[in-house]
């Protein structure tokens, strides 16, 4: 394992510290308990938006703290959900009285820890709503499983709900638009290589030189199955098909197309995937109204990508276009 780190146990501390130094104009960092808040939090009258989860997915979530997106990010250890004793004070710190929405990726650990924190916050008089993100079509969704994972769609939920909060929507309205984004987005991923969790020191799974993992998540966990290596167009088709059919995309639909890198794949390759995905959508008669291409929700240095499609309506498009000023996503300001 070769990494630009000092000590596997201090990775998150030092990385978040560096983030705070580099973006002191945007955020305030609380070192212990660890969380990151928007510089001007709590913003008077505004619903607070908080997300968090294991570290290792940078720029998620701290990279999305700022005007028009999150008010707080709560980083756990690498690939480990944060604990209520971080989530609670972060929630209190961004509550202006209008309540706080938690955006939670649907993993057992995240769900349980955020659930506890939300109960504790309610007990302290803060209204909390939770938006669960579960956009991963690679995972079977049923009452008898842990359900679908939250992956690429998380970034879109955070941006659009963030814009709704910024324009002054109520607590329930912000949560509702978050849910609406989640209901209209699906994602599927592929890994060409595994990643190495610093404290583990060995790659999270093995792949032969001619194998790839289809249906990968963002925690270095193995995917649904291995297949022999294919070319970019073939892989794109494989990822996109289940996304589009699960969403029921048909002619005339307007969509946001999001090609996300897992951390170790060159941007040039993401554009090759984007090219094919755009072709397929055009063949289906869907219009790509907005695009996002880059490393926005990652799994350390994993090579691979995910494709997310969000079915847009006019309000979502408007909220997507609204100004945002964070370390990792910025426009209109």
């Amino acid at each position: 394992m070769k990494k630009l780190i000092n000590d596997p146990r201090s990775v998150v501390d030092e990385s978040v510290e560096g983030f705070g130094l580099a973006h002191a104009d945007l955020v305030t960092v609380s070192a212990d308990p660890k969380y990151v808040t928007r510089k001007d939090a709590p913003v008077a009258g505004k619903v607070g938006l908080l997300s968090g989860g294991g570290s290792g997915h940078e720029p998620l979530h701290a990279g999305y703290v700022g005007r028009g997106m999150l008010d707080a990010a709560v980083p756990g250890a690498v690939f480990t959900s944060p604990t209520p004793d971080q989530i609670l004070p972060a929630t209190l710190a961004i509550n202006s009285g209008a309540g706080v929405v938690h955006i939670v990726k649907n993993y057992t650990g995240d769900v349980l820890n955020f659930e506890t924190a939300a109960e504790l916050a309610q007990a302290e008089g803060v209204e909390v709503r939770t938006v669960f993100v579960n956009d991963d079509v690679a995972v079977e969704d049923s009452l008898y499983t842990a359900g679908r994972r939250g992956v690429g769609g998380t970034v879109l939920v955070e941006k659009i709900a963030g814009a709704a909060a910024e324009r002054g929507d109520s607590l329930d309205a912000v949560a509702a638009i978050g849910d609406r984004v989640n209901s209209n987005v699906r994602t599927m991923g592929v890994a060409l290589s595994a990643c190495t969790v610093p404290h583990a020191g060995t790659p999270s799974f093995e792949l032969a030189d001619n194998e790839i993992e289809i249906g990968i998540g963002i925690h270095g966990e193995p995917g649904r199955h291995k297949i022999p290596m294919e070319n970019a167009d073939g892989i794109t088709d494989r990822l996109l098909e289940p996304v589009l059919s699960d969403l029921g995309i048909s002619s005339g639909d307007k969509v946001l197309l999001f090609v996300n890198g897992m951390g170790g794949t060159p941007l040039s390759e993401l554009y090759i995937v984007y090219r094919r995905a755009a072709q397929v959508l055009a063949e289906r008669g869907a219009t790509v109204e907005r695009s996002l291409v880059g490393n926005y929700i990652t799994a350390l240095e994993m090579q691979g990508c995910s494709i997310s499609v969000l079915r847009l309506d006019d309000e979502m498009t408007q909220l997507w276009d609204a100004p945002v000023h964070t370390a990792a996503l910025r426009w209109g300001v």
Partner: protein
Amino acid sequence: MLLDVKWAVRWLTMCAEAMAENRAWLIELDRPIGDSDHGENMDRGFQAVLEKLAEAPPETPGAALKLTAMTLMSKVGGAAGPLYGTAFLRAATAFGDALEVDPAGLATALMAARDGIVARGKAESGDKTMVDAWTPAAEAAQAAADGTGNVLAVLVAAAEAAEAGAVATDPLVARKGRASYLGERSAGHRDPGAASSALILRAAVGAAA
């Protein structure tokens, strides 16, 4: 012999040792069917428990477990943190203020711990989770307490059943937790949380022996 606060502190100390010793193994169990952090999480959590115990030595077994519950909840994270936190909290509540715990009280506390995990995680037996260690352990403890067992016999029964339960997760297909994302591919691997549960209950025996 009854179980007192000395036993409880010894138990938690031996848990910490077990987690440190088995850190790498638990990470390795979590690698193929999870995200390679379970050993790290448990080790971090129980090291913090050791510090807390040193800072404010508890006066009853219940207090020791409650302190453990709060610490695990705030230091472990992931799925295991809230689940173990709930388990220890329910056991602590079952112990109450008692200075000493008898076989029946012990069995009741273990069953409460198991119920807490089920209430929190909503997993059933056979879902390939720590429930598959705790359910047989709690049941075996109850049976041993109902018989002529002393506390040691109850602890031994629980530990052995937990270990068997953990081993029995090997062929299962996971339906809860991260391993469930793998579907059929989760079969053939031991559940890391069941394995750490067995370590915890084994340490309880060592602390009483």
